[in-house]
């Protein structure tokens, strides 16, 4: 197994390496929230390696010691999959990292991923009692630490699985929703095949989120783990084209889970969007991450290495694209966002990292036109200044244009990151599957059941672009509902013996 995080002792000398502030833990002097050591800015903007190295055991222990072990832990209410937060932190404080990792994994199947990409500041950490007095416990960093510890020490072990149920389930899409659903179902004894359109499993985790934020080897380990549990993964299978959902059902699957994500990029509809050098964030990130265009020409897929790059949008996706542009050699990587900083939907840590790296922010600024040169390449972005007006339906103050405030930013590349919609491939080819007017699949929030018998759905395809953890939560709930549906409503295949049925039904 490859080590993703260098052992602490091997960190380069230049590394910013906070030393644990080891004041004895007493009410009077609680240690401050511990930072993770990370690659120094000047170095990291020249490579695609992960930015934070993660806690050392000492730092983790110290951070864990800050937890108050509340009797009624509010943090757990903030976790979409109800991780036993005080429980695992207590294990960390006692240096029992393995028990900590297993406790987390009992409700969160992708902790190494979530520890890195969850918006903890809006979830568990926002409800931490210490947050009210200053700084919450760094729950996400501890989650990352324990799962890295388990993985890097090769201590991951397979959980017990139920005996074969004789039921077959197809999972469409291998993002967090699909992977979680598949993992739960296989543990319950069902035969699971995951169909993925791309040539690699992981969904946004492999094609969207960059290496420097989520190393692909971590996603790879999670996928391997599922395969070891018995999940079959069928790559290069765009359902709706290679097979339809109905064909899957006819070919012997007892149920189908659809977790195809929100992968259809929106454009702005402003003039000039088809010039050379205008990318959707999906294309830009897919070229860079999935296709490894930063290693062109050793890898076959090229990407335009802009000197001055404008990224339109204020979410995680925009931050990822901006930081990717920098690493591809941009002198200026500029976020153009039509609201103010407070409204930016990106994780605080991503905005912080982006600022540290010198990403420029043009806030309250809305693109109206992309300008091209004679040969059709981008040469500028014309924007309009905005000011904040009355709150809109989302509660955020609506940006209103300042008349006559047009100005031009000199750029040679534009990355459009204004959101994604649901891919219509499945809705278009699946009669009886009801969707919303935006094209999202309509599904029961608790069970994932859809308008079509035996078909369940969850994740971004249902909710619209959301988060990894919400997609996982939906996959997990759907797995429980599918399990129940199979046992209650379905005849077991003849291959499965009565004894097995009895066992399963118990």
């Amino acid at each position, binding site marked *: 197994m490859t080590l993703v995080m260098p052992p602490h002792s091997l960190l380069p000398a230049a590394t910013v390496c906070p030393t644990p502030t080891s004041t004895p833990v007493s009410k009077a002097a609680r240690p401050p929230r511990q930072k993770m050591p990370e690659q120094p800015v000047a170095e990291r903007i020249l490579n695609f390696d992960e930015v934070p190295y993660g806690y050392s055991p000492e730092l983790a222990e110290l951070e864990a010691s800050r937890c108050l072990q509340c009797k009624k832990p509010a943090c757990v209410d903030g976790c979409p999959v109800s991780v036993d937060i005080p429980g695992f932190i207590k294990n960390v404080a006692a240096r029992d990292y393995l028990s900590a990792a297993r406790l987390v994994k009992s409700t969160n199947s992708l902790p190494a991923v979530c520890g890195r990409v969850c918006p903890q500041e809006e979830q568990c950490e926002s409800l931490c009692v210490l947050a009210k007095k200053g700084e919450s416990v760094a729950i996400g960093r501890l989650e990352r630490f324990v799962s890295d510890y388990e993985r890097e020490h090769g201590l991951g072990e397979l959980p017990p699985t139920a005996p074969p149920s004789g039921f077959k389930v197809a999972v469409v899409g291998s993002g967090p929703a699909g992977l979680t659903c598949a993992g739960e179902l296989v543990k319950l004894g069902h035969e699971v095949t995951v169909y993925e359109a791309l040539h690699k499993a992981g969904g946004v985790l492999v094609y969207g989120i960059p290496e420097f934020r989520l190393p692909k080897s971590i996603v790879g380990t999670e996928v391997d783990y599922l395969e070891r549990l018995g999940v079959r993964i069928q790559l290069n299978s765009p359902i709706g084209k290679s*097979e339809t959902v109905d064909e899957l059902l006819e070919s012997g699957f007892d149920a189908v889970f659809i977790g195809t994500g929100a992968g259809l990029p929106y454009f702005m509809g402003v003039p000039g969007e088809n010039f*050379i050098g205008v990318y959707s964030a999906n294309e830009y990130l897919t070229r860079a991450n999935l296709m490894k265009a930063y290693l062109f*020409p050793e*890898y*076959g897929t*090229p990407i335009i290495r802009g000197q001055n790059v404008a990224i339109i949008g204020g979410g995680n996706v925009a931050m990822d694209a901006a930081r990717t542009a920098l690493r591809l050699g941009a002198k200026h990587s500029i976020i153009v966002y039509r609201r103010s900083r407070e409204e930016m939907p990106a994780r605080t840590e991503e905005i912080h990292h982006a600022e540290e790296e010198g990403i420029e922010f043009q806030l309250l600024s809305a693109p109206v036109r992309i300008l091209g040169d004679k040969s059709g390449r981008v040469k500028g972005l014309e924007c309009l200044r905005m000011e904040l007006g009355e709150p809109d339906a989302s509660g955020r103050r609506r940006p209103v244009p300042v008349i006559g405030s047009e100005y031009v930013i000199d750029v040679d590349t534009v990355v459009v990151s204004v959101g994604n919609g649901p891919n219509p491939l499945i809705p278009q080819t699946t009669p009886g599957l009801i969707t919303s007017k935006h094209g999202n699949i309509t599904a029961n929030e608790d069970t994932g059941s859809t308008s079509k018998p035996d078909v369940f759905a969850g994740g971004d395809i249902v909710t619209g672009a959301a988060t990894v953890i919400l997609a996982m939560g939906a996959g997990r709930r759907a797995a429980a509902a599918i399990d129940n549906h199979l046992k209650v409503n379905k005849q077991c295949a003849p291959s499965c013996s009565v004894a097995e049925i009895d066992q399963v039904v118990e």
Partner: protein
Amino acid sequence: MAKVISRREIAPQTVLLELEAPRIAFKRRPGQFVILKQDERGERIPLTIAKSDATKGTITVIFQMVGAGTRGLGTVPVGGEILDTVGPLGRPTDIQHVGTVVSVGGGIGTAVAYPIASAMKAAGNKVIGIVGARTRELVILEEEMRSVSDELLITTDDGSYARKGFVTDVLREVIARGEKIDEVLAIGPVPMMRAVCAVTREAGIKTVVSLNPIMIDGTGMCGGCRVEIGGQTKFACVDGPEFDGHQVNWDVLDLRLSAYKDHEHDACRLYSTENH
């Protein structure tokens, strides 16, 4: 993994590969394409399925070795394997009995036109095939096209084979002789398709073209394949690849196809240093 069952160089730098891909062979309809990725480091390359054999479980693709990616693919030997094959992608051609169809294929475009012409013939249409190439040795699929055409007309730019001239010259003659044409199908390089569309627009004949913009996923996820049709942006991989030729903004297509011209240079240089 798709195994190469047979491989032929049907013209200079033009390779025909028959691949073992039973699921795709079974499902595929004329007009659809696959994306091939040769190995871990390879590009994803979209190629129209020229032929398929559902019983044998194979598909056939024909391509020109122009860039580093296609050159790599073209050198996979019989028995060798292609790491990733995905498809069938894109909307199938709308095959109907319309009457008389003229199928115009230019250069490698004939490989795309052939399966459609074949299906049009099978649907009971009268098919007039026009095959154009720069020079004699670049004329491909002549026999195949002849077998599905009621009449086959061949042109070469330099006059080295059949008649000298462009496909548009022949098309104009067919129109001029009073043939009642219900649909024209034009597939080839952008300048050719653009020229054919100019002729048919004048003559008021419905014209279908198949577009080949740069693609990555082929499932509507990246938007890299966007084309402008009737003033609107469409994704060729899911909304096409076939469109009404009279609605296509050819300038946008031409422009976007040139996005990586400089890169292609680098890649080819690397390719030739690695392989010599």
